[in-house]
């Protein structure tokens, strides 16, 4: 009986448990934050490198079209054939060519949403006027 009385009557007996629970919750919050931030940082870093490659690939494809004089022909079949052979198969693309005079040309697929789009623009000269080509590429799912 004396023991039980002591157990129930002690005012500060279970304070230790409260502190342990407090430490447990604090550690849990700390660990969750640590895990989340590490994951977010690794994801963000990966994202940036892919972006650089996509932009460089779009720019390279446009430069190849221009340097081989295919772009200035404004021939949809020629441009499409060379673009397909230049770009890796896992990339989707949309090429928009507009001219200072004359109709615009659109080649490729519809631009998807929810994914990063690498974009490059190149100005070129045709025999009669000048034009602007814009290449947008993305990684296919």
């Amino acid at each position: 009986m004396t023991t039980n009385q002591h157990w129930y009557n002690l005012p500060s007996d279970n304070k230790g448990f409260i502190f342990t629970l407090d430490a447990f919750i604090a550690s849990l919050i700390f660990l969750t934050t640590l895990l989340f931030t590490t994951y977010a940082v690794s994801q963000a870093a990966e994202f940036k490198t892919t972006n650089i490659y996509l932009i460089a690939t779009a720019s390279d494809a446009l430069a190849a079209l221009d340097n081989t004089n295919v772009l200035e022909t404004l021939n949809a079949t020629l441009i499409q054939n060379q673009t397909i052979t230049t770009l890796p198969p896992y990339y989707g693309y949309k090429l928009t060519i507009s001219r200072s005079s004359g109709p615009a040309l659109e080649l490729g697929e519809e631009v998807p949403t929810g994914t990063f789009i690498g974009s490059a623009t190149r100005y070129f000269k045709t025999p009669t006027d000048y034009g602007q080509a814009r290449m947008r590429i993305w990684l296919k799912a």
Partner: protein
Amino acid sequence: MNTNAQIAITDLFFALIIFIILMTAFSFFWTLYLTRFNDNLQRQELELLAYHISDLLVKTPGYPDTWEQDPNNTRILGLAKQDRVLSQEKISAFANLTYNQTKTIFNIERYNYYLLIQKNGTALYETNTLPSGSSVSVRRTATYDNQPTLVQFTLGQ
């Protein structure tokens, strides 16, 4: 009989167990993420180096501009006579340099690289060495003889 000491020990025991579990978990995740972070860092360094070298190769003539006339005094290697148009003379001069010479000029002595220049499926130039272990590969497109040409640069251990 006073049982205060026993309660304190039980409390300490639970606290210790929780502390040890948390410390073990923390240590495990810390090591795991540190390893991943280091791997990521190394991979990013490789990716940036590979991208930077491939950019120099396809976009610049190198330094001096006419390094192919005196390859032993080359400071920067570039294979282009103009932006993304490759020069036959520069590719030939590059092929005449030794693998270690090119690594020194690229400033990548601690890595190995593989370079392939391919036009219409035919290799114009290809190194004999292929990096082993983790490596990154960058594909660039340039023009050679008025034809689209693939420049693939792989960098690794």
